[in-house]
């Protein structure tokens, strides 16, 4: 019986092609013979252990447990496919980074920080991939939608929680800018550059 449970969990993880949580693993069994959560968890950990040194690995991601090909050999495995994976632009990744670290965030707020408009295509791609979800509306004029990340986003990057995301770069304190020092320097530079600036201005009028 115990072996059977392990085989079923193993087979399910291998066939699913998506993460399975303990609840959906339980649901594979008939109501009156469902194993306990603890039993399933024990089996999952056992499978994880056994996968060491093999061509696959058992990992826990945001929406459950999944089986994936060991990352170290993906170079070879990727040769199986003709197609190159979808690529993501810098603009999309910056938008995604802001949603990740600043959620809930509105599109306007993203645009403010990036200094440029966010294209509708980017929002559409993120929605379509189900990486982001709406978290209600901000209570300001226009009631803009607020966005946050989804479990699918974490799954995609093989992460269990947002905490596993890379930490944000630290910002140096602005503090009190040393005005005296800076100003002196700038004035000197300014007088040197003044002529250069005028040249540009002349060009403008042409």
């Amino acid at each position, binding site marked *: 019986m115990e072996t059977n449970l392990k085989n079923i969990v193993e087979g399910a993880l291998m066939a699913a*092609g998506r993460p399975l949580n303990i609840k959906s693993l339980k649901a594979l069994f008939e109501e009156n013979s469902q194993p306990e959560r603890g039993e399933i968890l024990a089996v999952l950990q056992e499978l994880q252990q056994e996968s060491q040194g093999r061509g696959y690995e058992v990992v826990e991601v945001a929406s459950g447990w999944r089986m994936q090909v060991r990352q170290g050999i993906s170079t070879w495995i990727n040769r199986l496919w003709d197609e190159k994976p979808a690529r993501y*632009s810098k603009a999309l990744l910056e938008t995604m980074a802001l949603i990740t670290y600043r959620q809930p965030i509105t599109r306007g707020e993203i645009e403010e920080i990036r*200094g440029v408009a966010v*294209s509708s295509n980017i929002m559409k791609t993120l929605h379509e991939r189900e990486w982001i979800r709406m978290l209600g509306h901000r209570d300001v004029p226009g009631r803009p939608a607020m966005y946050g990340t989804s479990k699918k986003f974490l799954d995609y990057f093989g992460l269990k929680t947002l905490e596993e995301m890379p930490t*944000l770069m630290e910002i140096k304190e602005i503090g009190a800018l040393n005005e005296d020092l800076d100003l002196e320097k700038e004035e000197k530079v300014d007088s040197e550059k003044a002529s250069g*600036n005028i040249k540009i201005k002349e060009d403008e009028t042409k």
Partner: protein
Amino acid sequence: MSRDFSLVEEQQDGRIDSSPISIKDILIEGEQLDELPKDLYIPPDALKVILENTFEGPLDLLLYLIRRQNLDILNIEIAEITKQYMSYVEMMRSINLELAAEYLVMAAMLAEIKSRMLLPRHEEYEDEDDPRAELIRRLQEYEQFKQAAEDIGELPRLERDINLVEIAAPERSERPEPEVELQSLLIAFSDVLKRAELFNSHHIQREPLSIRERMTSVLDSLYSISEDGEFVEFSTLFDVKEGRLGVVITLMAVLELIKEMLIGIVQSEPYGEIYICHPSEKIIEERAIERIDDMSEGQ
């Protein structure tokens, strides 16, 4: 529309180059630059490419200018940065006014800061914040997320670095497949066309679907045997039973395929059998030569 995708350069290993793009990555008319030309004479088209594809906006451009001088954000020289920034914006303005709008707002801000720095300071201004502080705060904030985006881009991810295990399940074929109504397929198509504004294209409107279908079947006969394509006798493509219209459709499909360089056509001797084949390099070359001939004749 395709701008979202054009920003990314792919490395040989299929990974995205998410490191900051250096000036060395930029080729102008095939030549690598060690630095941007001092006089900023860049062919307008090339500059447009640089600005659209390299910088994600005014803050990104500003960061680039600051980093190029190896400066700390906290120590930016407003005057010098403003000057360089203005040169870029000026070039952009002559090319693409719409793109420049966001850049112009920044230009105005820089100019304002600069002018305020130049004003003689009075006691009453002492209380005011340093005008640079807000700009620096924004630059720092932007840089933080620019870095975060690069970090996310380097995380191992599905499709590129992670392959899911998905083995065959017995009897899985019994799994019901989603039902699709033709209607929903058509609505999907009408949506995508509307977005792409393809409805306005007369070219597509006039193109009967039967030719598209025939193009597919011609390609099929070419590639059904081997990946590299076989030589197929031209005459076997036609089925006389289809009547005159069918023959015309096939002919138009073949012509369209040739036009799109999806097939090649060869004849070994005058009045000999005509074959269609994979558009091998030889044929493309031949066509290039023809075109050059045409051009010289035209002169």
